[in-house]
């Protein structure tokens, strides 16, 4: 059988409406049974590390001092935290935006070029003037065997040159 505090806890977790939760909070704050299910400050301090456990911490100041004296003898002025970070943040945003635009432009140009070269027929292409003529082919100064393969695709001719 669930106790009173468990029922309140379950209702609290299940129902998320703010008004309901406020009522539950008020109940928990004033109900001895609910309070008994929660650790008090002293109970919590029994399981927590406390400031008086920290002892001297004698090494902390020398370490902090070394670090801060290595940089400067005074804190960074307030002005450095007002204008500059905003400017720097904006600069980064602009740089990122410019980079993104440049990448998009390059990609678009590449795509356009690819598609255009596929659709516009160049007069130098073999299909355009009816054939391909090779006078001779040499490999390392020596005559080579040349095989011309004409595929079904009218715009594609494979030229295979082989050393004899």
């Amino acid at each position, binding site marked *: 059988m669930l106790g009173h505090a468990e029922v309140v806890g379950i209702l609290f977790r299940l129902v998320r409406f*703010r008004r309901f939760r406020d009522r539950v909070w008020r109940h928990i704050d004033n109900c001895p049974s609910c309070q008994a299910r929660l650790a008090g400050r002293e109970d919590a301090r029994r399981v927590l590390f406390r400031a008086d456990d*920290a*002892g001297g911490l004698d090494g902390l100041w020398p370490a902090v001092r070394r670090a801060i004296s290595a940089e400067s003898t005074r804190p960074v002025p307030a002005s450095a935290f007002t204008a500059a970070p905003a400017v720097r943040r904006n600069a980064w945003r602009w740089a990122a935006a410019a980079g993104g635009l440049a990448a998009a432009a390059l990609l678009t140009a590449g795509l356009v070029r690819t598609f255009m070269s596929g659709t516009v027929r160049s007069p130098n292409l073999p299909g355009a003037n009816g054939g391909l003529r090779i006078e001779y082919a040499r490999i390392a100064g020596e005559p080579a065997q040349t095989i011309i393969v004409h595929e079904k695709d009218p715009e594609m001719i494979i030229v295979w040159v082989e050393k004899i």
Partner: protein
Amino acid sequence: MSLVDEKATIAACLAGQGEDFRLLVDAYKSQAMAMAMNVLGNRQDAEDVCQETFIQVFRHLARFDPARSFRTWILTILYRRCLDVLKRKRRFRAAFQRISRDSGQRLTAAFDPPAERRDLARIVQKRLSPKERAAVSLWANEGLTSAEIAGIIGCSPSTARVCLFNARRKIKTVLEERDVGAR
């Protein structure tokens, strides 16, 4: 350290008297260390985080709003640093542990609670989330309210209250289990 002294010390540091920063370090180092220990559960990490926190506080002292509590400001920076360490540890657990072992220089050997509390603290470390540990540490050790805790851990007061509620419930369970085990 009184509020007046604190403001005077901050003004002196901003005017270039860096040595005066020691007064602020001495005033808050124990509280900072206790909270770091409660969130991280590891002395080496807690010491590193405390050191980094005070260095960051010094660097950004000019940014401190005097209308706010200096203690709350330090603890906010400390909590974020602790979360950074936990995140880093999750990502590079093995490498981090190796580095921790290698950097042997200790700031103190005096952080040593009684054995029973140390054991309980270890159990609580496992059962509570970092946010819950921070919330309950700030509530029990520093006496802060849900609204103040919310400002430090970066959530709404309602969420801070839920964190605190869950933490207190879990701690109660740990203590009850311990009592049953002792009988």
